[in-house]
């Protein structure tokens, strides 16, 4: 399998030859930053296009087809439109927080995105508490949402933001518990090591029953964390017009919109990394020939393939189920998911202690 670290270290040595150490690192940082943002934007466009096409398919429609072949340029047009749209200034709003909120949301999203190992050697933020860092930055977004709801001076926004706050903070718990279950199995919080551990089999299979439970709990909680249906209460269109971003227009709204979709990708990619082996090809220990064939498929393809599969699953859920009510959402979390998560963590701990896993 191709190791991307060869490329990156090659660039580093090449730059160091001509430039001082500090300058070389600075240039690399800028290049990496630009690359992340570009990738982020591309993922956003792919995600929104996919959402529109997938939901059209579920709904017996065909979705965008007019702009470009199969409507692929539809999103480019949307981005252009959004960029030039007026940003409405609202009187009687807290202007500083109002303008700040979308950036907080997008910063949290980009930081979490940067944690994901895309392929072998292609990790941007990779250190010993990677999972912990990921969970921390991904919950920054809720601050942005609360600020947006508060500063808009709109009752719908405020209700939406409060719902969102209650929901996201609650479901963080389940995410944490299910991730903890896996960490108990791996014994490390570094993404690269977690992926490396799965060369002999994905953690979903290695940790068998508790891992599968953790995976399901994670998917439910992650869906809620992204404010996606059936948990899309904060922006429940039929109740709160557009929820916390009711008052946002133009690119400010665009940032919320983009962050929502990329967050969906991020949680799916995280699940793919932790449970389904990330960029690691599908290996079955013992079948070396089969494993070698699998290795020919590049890691990035594995990674995106798994991630987009999970994205599709979440979309399928969204376009099938009706919306839950706010008390039902919290009930589900506190009465079902958290106890299940805790019990599951205990089971996993026992499995690890007695070596009942593969």
């Amino acid at each position, binding site marked *: 399998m191709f190791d991307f670290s060869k490329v990156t270290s090659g660039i580093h040595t090449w730059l160091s030859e001509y430039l001082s150490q500090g300058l070389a690192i600075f240039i690399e940082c800028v290049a990496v930053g630009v690359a992340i943002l570009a990738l982020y934007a591309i993922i956003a466009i792919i995600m929104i296009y996919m959402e*529109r096409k997938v939901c*059209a398919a579920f*709904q*017996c*429609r*065909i*979705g*965008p*087809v*007019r*702009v470009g072949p199969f*409507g692929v*340029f*539809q999103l*480019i*047009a*949307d*981005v*252009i*439109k*959004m960029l*030039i*749209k*007026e*940003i*409405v*200034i609202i*009187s009687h709003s807290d202007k500083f927080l109002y303008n700040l909120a979308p950036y907080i949301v997008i910063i949290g999203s980009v930081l979490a995105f940067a944690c994901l190992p895309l392929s072998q050697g292609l990790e941007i933020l990779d250190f010993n508490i990677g999972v912990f860092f990921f969970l921390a930055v991904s919950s920054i977004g809720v601050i942005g949402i609360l600020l947006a709801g508060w500063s808009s001076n709109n009752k719908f926004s405020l209700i939406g933001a409060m719902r969102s706050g209650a929901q996201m903070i609650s479901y963080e718990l389940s995410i944490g518990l299910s991730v903890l279950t896996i960490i108990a199995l791996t014994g490390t919080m570094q993404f690269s090591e977690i992926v490396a551990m799965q060369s002999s089999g994905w953690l979903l299979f290695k940790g068998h029953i508790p891992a599968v439970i953790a995976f399901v709990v994670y998917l439910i909680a992650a869906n809620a964390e992204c404010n996606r249906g059936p948990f899309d209460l904060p922006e429940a*269109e039929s109740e709160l*017009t*557009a929820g916390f*971003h*009711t*008052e*946002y*227009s*133009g690119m400010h*709204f665009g940032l919320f919109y983009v962050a929502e979709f990329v967050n969906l990708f991020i949680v799916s990619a995280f699940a793919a990394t932790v449970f389904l082996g990330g960029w690691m090809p599908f290996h079955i220990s013992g079948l070396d020939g089969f494993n070698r064939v699998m290795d020919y498929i590049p890691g990035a393809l594995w990674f995106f393939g798994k991630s987009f599969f999970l994205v599709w699953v979440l979309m399928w859920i969204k376009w099938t189920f009706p919306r839950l009510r706010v008390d039902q959402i919290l009930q589900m979390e506190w009465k079902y998911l958290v106890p299940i998560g805790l019990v599951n963590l205990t089971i996993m701990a026992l499995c690890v202690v007695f070596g009942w896993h593969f």
Partner: protein
Amino acid sequence: MEIGKSKKKELVKIKSIPYDEFKNNDYLEEMVRELNENGTNVIVGVLDEAINWGRGNSLWPLTFATSCCGIEFMAVGAARYDMARFGLEVARASPRQADFIMVAGTITDKMAPVLKRLYDQMADPKYVIAVGGCTISGGPFKHSYHVVKGIDQILPVDVFIPGCPPRPEAMLYGMMQLQRKVKLQRFFGDVNKKEVSEREYEEMMKRDMTANS
């Protein structure tokens, strides 16, 4: 600068629909002629074209309906007619995020200020489509004491779609006409309004408030 005929056709092209199928080409050609009377800077012109391509292909409607025409508007979004094909399906419930408002259904005296307010809440550039006889002239309720006789009295209308209610096909046609119109407009110095400073804005707001009371 005279613009060639072929060029004109290209400007207002809608995919897979022949140019001559549209009925109001004269009007649009006239609009292009007027716009280009004084000539355009090449760079601005190219930018304009790119931006207008984006704007024209990404018109998001406001979910707004008062009566019968609203049901047909829903039908346009539904499976058989599927306005998503044109990228129009992202109906926004918040006026801040919408690009055009389909005024579908009768507008009454009580609703008129609300409609005006909705229009004011939308972010520029914004467009209005008047759907159905009621919004065009009052329709069958023209002689009523509580119906606005045409919303062009209160809003600048871009496209009129006659019918009672218009068929979904007619609505699609109207929306395509709006796309064509948007694609022909000049964005710089015309559609994008001059930005006002915060102080000016406050003053304007104050003026608006006092005017109402």
